């Protein structure tokens, strides 16, 4: 055995040779231009996550304002117009500017690490996607702060959102903000699929891939098929009707507002799973790290994830049961909506078996997982109830629905996300997050969450409809609403504890080392935080949990060049090495392209010619982006 390798083995499980040269190759430039040119997946992932958390805070503050308004009957704290703007901006922020981008950010950060490669397949596209997302968020909040906030709800149903009933630019800004965030989501989806299918560590056949990567793969395919639908709904139909006089949602000229609902929910329902499926992957990762065993029934979990994605595209009409569709259609969608409980149930049972047979290490992250299971199962129950047409018609547009979807969205996505944040915090920062504060934050959030949203089910069944800005005293909804408002402020308190914990642990937490949880997947095989190139030597594996396997069952790749950004391309199913591939260097062009496109797309809110400006500037940016740099030939 080579003595050099033996020594290296002690420091890093996958070898530790000549890091200086490779560091020089993968380092980003300093200064403002360097900052704008970054294409490292870790940096971009962190930017996504931090930006998304900022929007979570804004969306949360909007929710608090609404809860204040509803805390007592006939309250005059907010007027009806302002209230409409608040619930629209709150919903839009949470769906488009927080939930999807934060999941994409986690994927961008962790997928290359878990796969054992150096970056995503298209690093510049990754940077471009982030800048588009940021531009969309700035456009939306820029408009909101200059009093042009949309006020037609986060799904902007026509005719209310049409030219006749929503004059002003608010809905136009909403529609074009969707374009920005969807471009960003599509960029991430494309690059993650290519990374997952082509850049896994040698030996990581698909059936050895970590479940979080499976979740991101399934989610990315859903993004490919769902996001074009919302772009058709928001720009081709709604925005063009409003700005250039097409008639898609205008019944007087043959258009149909119901068609908008179909197209929107063909995106909107999969959207829920686009948020939820990465969360399932996170929960699986946390469980593996906290029980020191692989998730029970790995093939069943993977197949359920895939099945969920398929069924999710056949559910959209259950958002439209009150629109008077044919009964046979409603029956089909009821059956499909109930079917998804089966696949979700399989996953839940696999997790229970994992916990049952594992050695549980009750971390703060695992607390959030338990909270997730409780809340999500409750939300799933009301989901099965709402899938039934008669109950749905009664509860339609009531606070029962508001309670239900906050249970599935916060329970299904936010709790796993917070858990994942605690679990992976050492990897992000190199320091442990304070476990005690983490558990305190969890209990406050769990209590506050149920206090806020459980009463909504009851007040909804008592007849309170969503989106009303106030109610008379005589209906008797006061106490439940007051409880919900108290709960909302409890959530705020939990959020403050969480943020304080993050800020202090970042500076003064205990040093984490590579693998504080003794977990089995590859992101723990490198330093915390990882260097720009992730691994000095690319890992080479032979089992699902390489760090739990014996030394004989893992190894590392040699023969990669360290003087250019080389990654290894492997085959789709078995991850056998096929060729080396040189990733492009860092450059400012993705930023320039995103800036040019953004200027044009903002212009398109005012005149259709803005699209031509966007195309011209975007094309210039793309040509700069692809313009060949020396050296042209890539000799091995």
């Amino acid at each position, binding site marked *: 055995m080579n003595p050099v*390798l033996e020594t290296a083995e002690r420091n890093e499980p996958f070898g530790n040779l000549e890091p200086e040269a490779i560091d020089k190759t993968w380092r980003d430039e300093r200064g403002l231009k360097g900052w704008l040119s970054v294409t490292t997946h870790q940096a971009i992932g962190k930017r996504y996550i931090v930006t998304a958390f900022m929007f979570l805070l804004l969306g949360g503050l909007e929710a608090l304002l609404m809860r204040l308004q509803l805390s007592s009957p006939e309250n005059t704290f907010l007027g009806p117009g302002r209230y409409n703007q608040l619930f629209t901006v709150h919903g839009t922020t949470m769906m488009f500017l927080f939930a999807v981008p934060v999941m994409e950010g986690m994927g961008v950060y962790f997928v290359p690490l878990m796969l054992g490669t150096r970056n995503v*397949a*298209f690093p510049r*596209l990754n940077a471009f996607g982030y800048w588009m997302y940021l531009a969309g968020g700035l456009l939306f909040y820029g408009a909101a702060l200059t009093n042009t906030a949309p006020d037609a709800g986060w799904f902007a149903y026509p005719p209310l959102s049409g030219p006749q009933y929503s004059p002003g630019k608010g809905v136009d800004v909403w529609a074009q903000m969707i374009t920005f965030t969807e471009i960003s989501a599509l960029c991430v*989806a*494309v*690059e993650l*699929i*290519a990374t997952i*299918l082509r*850049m896994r560590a*040698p*030996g990581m056949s698909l059936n050895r891939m970590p479940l979080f990567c499976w979740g991101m793969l399934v989610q990315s395919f859903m993004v490919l*098929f769902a*996001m*074009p*639908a919302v*772009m*058709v709904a928001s720009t*081709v139909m709604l925005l063009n009707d409003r700005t*250039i*006089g*097409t*008639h*898609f949602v205008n019944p007087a*000229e*043959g*258009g149909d507002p119901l*068609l908008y609902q*179909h*197209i929107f929910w*063909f995106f909107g329902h999969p959207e829920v799973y686009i948020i939820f499926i990465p969360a399932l992957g996170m929960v699986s990762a946390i469980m593996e790290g906290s029980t020191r065993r692989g998730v029970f029934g790995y093939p069943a979990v993977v197949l359920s994830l895939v099945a969920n994605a398929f069924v999710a595209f056949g559910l959209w009409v259950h958002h439209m049961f009150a629109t008077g569709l044919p009964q046979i259609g409603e029956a089909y969608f009821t059956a499909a909506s109930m079917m998804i409980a089966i696949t979700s149930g399989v996953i839940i049972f696999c997790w229970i078996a994992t916990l049952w047979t594992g050695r549980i290490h009750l971390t703060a992250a695992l607390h959030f997982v338990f909270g997730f299971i409780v809340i999500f199962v409750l939300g799933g129950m009301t989901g099965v109830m709402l899938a039934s047409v008669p109950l749905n018609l009664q509860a339609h547009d009531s606070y029962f629905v508001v309670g239900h979807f906050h249970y599935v969205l916060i329970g299904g996505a936010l709790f796993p996300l917070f858990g994942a944040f605690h679990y992976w915090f050492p990897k992000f920062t190199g320091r442990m997050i304070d476990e005690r504060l983490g558990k305190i934050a969890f209990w406050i959030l769990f209590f506050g969450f149920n206090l806020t949203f459980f009463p909504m089910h009851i007040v909804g069944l008592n007849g309170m409809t969503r989106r009303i800005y106030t109610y008379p005293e005589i209906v008797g909804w006061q106490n439940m609403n007051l409880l919900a408002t108290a709960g909302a402020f409890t959530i705020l308190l939990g959020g403050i504890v969480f943020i304080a914990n993050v800020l202090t642990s970042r500076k003064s937490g205990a040093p984490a080392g590579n693998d504080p949880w003794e977990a089995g997947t590859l992101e723990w095989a490198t330093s915390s935080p990882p260097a720009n190139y992730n691994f000095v030597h690319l890992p*080479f594996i032979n089992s699902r949990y390489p760090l739990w396997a014996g*030394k*004989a*069952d*893992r*190894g*590392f*790749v040699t*023969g*990669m060049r360290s003087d250019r950004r*080389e990654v290894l*391309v492997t085959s789709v199913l*078995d991850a*056998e*090495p*096929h*060729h*080396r*591939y*040189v990733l492009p260097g860092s450059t400012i062009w993705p930023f320039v392209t995103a800036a040019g496109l953004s200027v044009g797309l903002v212009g398109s809110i005012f005149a259709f010619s803005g699209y031509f400006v966007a195309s011209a500037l975007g*094309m210039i940016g*793309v*040509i700069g982006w692809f313009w*060949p740099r020396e050296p*042209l030939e*890539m*000799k*091995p």
Partner: protein
Amino acid sequence: MVLAARTPGDEAVTTPRVLDVSGLPAYDISSRSPLWLGQLLMCLIEGSLFLILIAMYFYLRLSVDVWPPPGVQLPNLILPTLALIPLIASCAGSYLASEAAKMNDRRGMLVGMALNLVLAIVFLVLRTVEWYGLNFTWKADVHGSIVWSILFLHTYDVVADLIMTTVLVVLVASGRYGEKQRLGVHVDSVLWYFLVAIWLPLYAVVYWGSHVVGAPQ
């Protein structure tokens, strides 16, 4: 290159701890490249977009009795059908260029891309003539809106791809190219095949739709 044997019950098999990949090629101009896969995924995105538009066409058709609406002339079928000939033929140019890119045949790439461009421009000229022949705009009624949306979005994509191809022609002609740009030429053909293939159902819907599923007033 052989990895560890993946025979059943291979837990006990020890594997080489070092995998030397220095012998692998540094580039691959084929469908095994990540870029090729990325281009295919972009085509899937655009494909979903166009399929949604087709679904919308039939949904809108079914919600009215008269289609196309009164005053709209049935489109002329001859010109759009003739235009398919240069369009489909242009794929041959793309194919030539993409095969030449694999073999680093500069002349082949230039000839292929030029053939692609010329035939595509002939197609675009015919498309423009057809377009001027329509006696309605997107503002007329919802039939106009959907037909114009399909025509506009497809034409937009075609023009964008032709600009990209032109840039590649400039790079190859000026000699400013290496493996990366050859891979670009190869992958560019994927997008072109897609744009041609997706036009066939779109053509059928836009031009034959009102003939076949229409109903006069």
